[in-house]
């Protein structure tokens, strides 16, 4: 049927079939909304997808990559199943790494404890009670040596979820490769290293936004030259979403950050086609199944077009948005925790249908504590079932062409572009300045708090249903076994650190720290000096203190 005929037929259907039906049978709800409060219609037809399908979709592996960045997607290679792990001391996490590799995991992913993430040593007063609790404690290269004991760095790819102190951990990984005799250009992995979203959402920082971004660009410059197979940043929407963002806000703020990093790199003198292929993204996969799929597809299209048209990238790899996905931690419920296995499966399926390059599935017990080994295994098996049993990996972009999915993709895209234009205006034609100004003024923080509050109100009014929370509830207080961190981790870690401090060459440490400080003051790239410093067993806290002293500590302006 031609388009006009389809439209006419839809009108006829509404009149002859739908209206009489609705007179007899009311819809279950007055309004059907996504978790992001977007209204969903009863039916989508070709009428709803007015855009130029051929140009907007393209073919897989071709610009603008809506259907996927690879030609055959999962028919050639599955996504990387990458479960985040880390707790206690380096020995314990090293054991978990070996366990995961044995069970078929393909890449490692490291969770650090809060002190390491915030650039404090384990013996700092702010670290009390937090050492080894949320992740592994790493103070010096000694801990990294233990963490990767028995693992050759050219045989794995390792992801490090760390931000303000990411440059130090990166320097340690490079130093470890040097130690193992692995050439630097053979190491593969990712540091999260996305400071902009820290100021927006995750709230881990050491110094102010602008010098923090300078430090990120130091790692870009170093990475382009020294470790071309290592992703120096994972531009993350995950935390923005967890902090309360809608799907559109997650995508808009994350892509804006991506463009801002490109602008920062170009400002430093890097070529857009040198840096862009090293950028990777990290998204959340949330509850509203089709909206999420639309989000992933829209992400690729917006990135490709902006990189080509606005930033003049010529290399196809610069146009391809590669991303990691994690299922939404915030959707895990403490109530009836086994239900979380199903939530995770659906969110993981959305990520796969959206064309993700790697995936972390949450464990069902994570609303309560870090996951137990059993819970992690079920989460990993969930991915394996999707990959090998469901059949969704047999063809590229199986939902492409669905009126509803194309409409969701177009809608998310249009609203995302509106936000990006607003941010661009906030920076008077520079997205980098727009993002930094927005952070200073609390724009992003307010937008997220508003959405989070709105969602909570909808849950309490039963406009959003959460099984086990506001429907089909049971008596709570269900006890499931949770992971216990050995209470003496802190003491053991502090002891290790004192031992390293006693045994290292004090003069070399002083010199290394002085060199970093001098480079910072000269405005020179600090990365090579950090690599030297970690080799002298200078600690994470000692290095980050240099930046605290030179630029000042950051405190968030009060905005509630």
């Amino acid at each position: 049927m031609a388009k006009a005929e389809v439209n006419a037929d839809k009108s006829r259907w509404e009149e002859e079939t739908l209206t009489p039906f609705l007179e007899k049978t009311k819809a279950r709800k007055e309004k059907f909304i996504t978790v992001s409060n977007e209204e969903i219609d009863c039916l989508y037809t070709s009428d709803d997808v007015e855009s130029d399908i051929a140009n907007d979709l393209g073919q897989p592996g071709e610009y603008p990559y809506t259907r996927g960045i690879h030609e055959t997607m999962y028919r050639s290679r599955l996504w990387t199943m990458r479960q985040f792990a880390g707790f206690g001391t380096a020995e314990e996490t090293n054991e978990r790494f070996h366990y995961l590799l044995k069970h078929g995991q393909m890449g490692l992913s490291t969770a650090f404890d809060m002190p390491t993430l915030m650039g404090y040593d384990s013996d700092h007063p702010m670290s009390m009670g937090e050492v080894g609790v949320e992740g592994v404690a790493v103070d010096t290269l000694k801990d990294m040596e233990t963490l990767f004991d028995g693992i050759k760095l050219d045989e794995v790819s390792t992801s490090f979820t760390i931000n303000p102190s990411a440059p130090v951990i990166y320097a340690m990984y490079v130093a470890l490769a040097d130690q193992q005799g692995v050439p630097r250009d053979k190491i593969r992995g990712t540091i999260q290293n996305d400071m902009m979203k820290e100021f927006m959402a995750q709230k881990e920082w050491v110094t102010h936004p602008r010098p923090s971004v300078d430090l990120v660009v130091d790692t870009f410059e170093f990475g382009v030259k020294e470790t071309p197979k290592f992703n120096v940043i994972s531009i993350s929407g995950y935390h923005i979403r967890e902090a309360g963002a809608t799907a559109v806000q997650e995508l808009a703020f994350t892509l804006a950050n991506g463009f801002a990093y490109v602008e920062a790199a170009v400002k430093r003198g890097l070529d857009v086609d040198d840096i862009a292929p090293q950028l990777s993204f990290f998204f959340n996969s949330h509850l509203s199944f089709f909206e999420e799929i639309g989000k992933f597809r829209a992400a690729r299209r917006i990135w490709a077009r902006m990189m080509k048209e606005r930033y003049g990238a010529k290399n196809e790899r610069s146009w391809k948005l590669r991303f990691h996905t994690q299922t939404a931690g915030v959707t895990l419920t403490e109530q009836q925790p086994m239900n979380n296995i199903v939530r995770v499966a659906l969110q993981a399926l959305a990520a796969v249908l959206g064309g993700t390059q790697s995936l972390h599935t949450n464990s069902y017990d994570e609303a309560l504590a870090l996951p137990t080994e059993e819970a992690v295994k079920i989460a990993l098996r969930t991915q394996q079932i999707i990959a090998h049993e469901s059949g969704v990996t047999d063809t590229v972009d199986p939902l492409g062409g669905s009126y509803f999915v194309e409409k969701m993709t177009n809608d998310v895209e249009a609203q995302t572009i509106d936000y990006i234009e607003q941010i661009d205006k906030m920076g008077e034609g520079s997205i980098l300045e727009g993002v930094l100004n927005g952070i200073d003024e609390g724009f992003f923080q307010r937008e997220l708090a508003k959405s989070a509050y709105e969602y909570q109100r909808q849950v309490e009014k039963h406009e959003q249903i959460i099984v086990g929370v506001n429907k089909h509830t049971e008596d709570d207080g269900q006890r499931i076994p949770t992971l216990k961190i050995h209470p003496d981790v802190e003491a053991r870690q502090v002891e290790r650190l004192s031992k390293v401090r006693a045994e290292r060459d004090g003069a070399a440490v002083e010199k290394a720290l002085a060199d970093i400080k001098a480079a910072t003051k000269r405005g020179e790239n600090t990365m090579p000096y950090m690599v030297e410093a970690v080799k002298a067993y200078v600690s994470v806290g000692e290095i980050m203190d240099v930046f605290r002293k030179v630029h000042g500590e950051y405190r968030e302006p009060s905005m509630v």
Partner: protein
Amino acid sequence: MAKVGLDGHDRGVKVVAQALRDSGMEVIYTGLHNTPDQAVTAALQEDVDVVGVSILSGAHMTLLPKIRKLMDEKGLTDVLLMAGGTIPEEDKDELRQQNIGGLFGPGTFTEDIVTYINNEVDKLRGAPA
């Protein structure tokens, strides 16, 4: 209300602060990365009825008892200390014994928190609940 330690998860604390305000309470949020000492000092200065602490970092067994101890030492024995976040059931038992209340997990309705605070504060003031 306060976030103590290095934990940056502030979605919950902001939602709860807004909900308490909407219910007519006066709320002072001290922001991120407070030490227990800073949180208790703020409570003293502002002469509060309730100290609410949000922790999702797993450090609750160290930081919450420390805050209770500091509050008691500074004479805030009649001030309610309550917490919310990711806290396993068995830890809740131990914290309750140390006079730390609330212990609301993910999925809690803000109206339940409001009711809880009103009841507890009435009890502490000796008024009928």
